[in-house]
C-alpha cells in the first residue's frame, strides 16, 4: 500500500505545482513508482510542468463519472517509466467531483503506486477539500513573504482540523542575499510561526521558469540548484537524513570566491 501526499499552500503562485512535479519526478528517479494527480480542475497546469499536455485523452473527472477506467486516464511520463500523471479536466469546474469520489480514486491509486502526490489548487474551497480528502500526509509550500506565511498558517489549521497531522513545510524561493540582509523573512522566523517540521528549503532559481516552459522538471537538470533541493526533499520523504543545502554556496563567481577566501 502506498502513501498519498497532498501538496498545498493556500496562497496561489508559491510553487505547489512546481513542487509536485519535481518531487514526483525525483521520487521516480529514486526508483519509486509514483503517480502525480492534478486536483486543480479547470486551471490545470501539472501536465505542462511535465510536458505531457498533448497526451491527455481522459482525466480525473472522466474517472469519477465512470466514462473511463482509471488505467485509461493515467499518462506515462516520457522520461521515466515509473512516473505517471493523472490529469484533470480543463473544461469543467471543481464541483465536478466530490471529496468521497476523490478519496476512492486515491485509495485505488495507493494500491498500485508507492507514492500518490496530489497537486492542490489555491484557496480553501471545494478544490482544496477534494485534494485533501484522500491524503495521508501533507506538504505545505510557502515563500518568505508574510502573505504566504499567513495563508500557510490558515491551511495548516484547516488540515489539522481534518485530522491530517502528518504535515511538513517546504520554504520555496529563498533568496539568500535578501534573508541575510533581513529584507526577507528568514527560515527561523517562519518555522517559529508555523511550528511544523521543515522538510526542505528551495532557493530561488530563474531556471525554474525555463524548465517549466519546456516541460522538464528542474530535478532532471544536474546543474540546477532548485533541482538539487527537490532531490534532497525526495530523499527526506523516503526517510533519509539529508543535511539542508548550504545556501551560502550561492556566492560563486569571482568575487564570491574571493570573499570566501578572505573570510577564512
Amino acid at each position, binding site marked *: 500500500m502506498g502513501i498519498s501526499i497532498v501538496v498545498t499552500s493556500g496562497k496561489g503562485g508559491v510553487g505547489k505545482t512546481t513542487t509536485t512535479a519535481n518531487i514526483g519526478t525525483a521520487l521516480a528517479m529514486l526508483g519509486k513508482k509514483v503517480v502525480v494527480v492534478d486536483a486543480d480542475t479547470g*486551471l*490545470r497546469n501539472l501536465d505542462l510542468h511535465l510536458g505531457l*499536455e*498533448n*497526451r*491527455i*485523452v481522459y482525466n480525473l473527472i472522466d474517472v469519477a463519472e465512470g466514462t473511463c477506467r482509471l488505467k485509461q486516464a493515467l499518462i506515462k511520463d*516520457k522520461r521515466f517509466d515509473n512516473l505517471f500523471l493523472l490529469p484533470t479536466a*480543463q*473544461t469543467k469546474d471543481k464541483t465536478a467531483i466530490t471529496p468521497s469520489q476523490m478519496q476512492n480514486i486515491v485509495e485505488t491509486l495507493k494500491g498500485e503506486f508507492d507514492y500518490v502526490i496530489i497537486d492542490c489548487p489555491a484557496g480553501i474551497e471545494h478544490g482544496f477539500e477534494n485534494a485533501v480528502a484522500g491524503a495521508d500526509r501533507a506538504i505545505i509550500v510557502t515563500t518568505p513573504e508574510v502573505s504566504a506565511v499567513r495563508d500557510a498558517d490558515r491551511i495548516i489549521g484547516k488540515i489539522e482540523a481534518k485530522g491530517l497531522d502528518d504535515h511538513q513545510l517546504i520554504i520555496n524561493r529563498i533568496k539568500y542575499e535578501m534573508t541575510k540582509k533581513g529584507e526577507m523573512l528568514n527560515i527561523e522566523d517562519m518555522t517559529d510561526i508555523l511550528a511544523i517540521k521543515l522538510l526542505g528549503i528551495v532557493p530561488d532559481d530563474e531556471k525554474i521558469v525555463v524548465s517549466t516552459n519546456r516541460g522538464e522538471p528542474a530535478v532532471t537538470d544536474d546543474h540546477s540548484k532548485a533541482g538539487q533541493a527537490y532531490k534532497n526533499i525526495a530523499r527526506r520523504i523516503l526517510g533519509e537524513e539529508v543535511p539542508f543545502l548550504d545556501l551560502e554556496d550561492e556566492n560563486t563567481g569571482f568575487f564570491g570566491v574571493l570573499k570566501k577566501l578572505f573570510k577564512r
Partner: protein
Amino acid sequence: MSSINIKGYRDGLKVYVNSCSYQQLREELAQRIMRARDFFTGCRMYIVDEQKNISLDCYREIENYLREEFGITLLYQKGDKEEKKEKIFSGIYEGRTKFFKNTIRSGQRITYNGNIVVIGDINSGAEIVANGNIIVLGTLRGMAHAGYNGNKRAFVAAYILQPSQLRIADIIARSPDERTEKSSIPEVARIKDDIIIIEPYLPNKYL
C-alpha cells in the same frame, strides 16, 4: 424560418425544434395548437430536439401544460428509429454549420452536432468537438475533434494548425514533443489509411 416544424407520422405528431429558447418553443407551440385546436386535441406528440436546447425540467413543464390544456400526450423521443439512422453525422459536404466569431479560450468547450467554423483563434486548453468538419480562420492551439460520432471523412482545417491534440472520429494524434517549425500556410488534417495526416492547403488541390 419558424422555430418549430410539426410533421405527422404513423405513431403521432413530431415537433422538430430548431434553435430556439424554451420560451419561444412554448409560445409557438401554443399558437400552432390554437390555430387548429380540434385537430390537436387528444393526439400523441413527440418533441425532437436535436440541439438539446430544451432541458428536462422545461420538457416536463411543456408536458404538463399540453396535457392540461389540450389533452395531448407528450412522449419521449427515446429509441426512435429515425434518430438511429442518422447516428453518424453525414453533413460534411452540406449540412448544419455553426459559426463562432471570437477567440475560444482555455477551459471553453464547444460542441455541435454539425460543422463548426471559428473566425478567431482556439487557444491551448480549449476543446472544439463537432460531429462534422472544423474550420478555423485563425490559429488552432487547443484540442479539436472532428467527426465526433464516427464520420471518418471529416476534416480539420486551420490557418495555422498547431493543435496539442487532434482527433478525427476515433483516431487520436498528438503534436510532436520537440518543437517543429511553424507552417506559414494553412493546413488540413484528415484520415488516410487509419492515421491522421496533415497536408498543406494548396488551393488548386481542392478545386
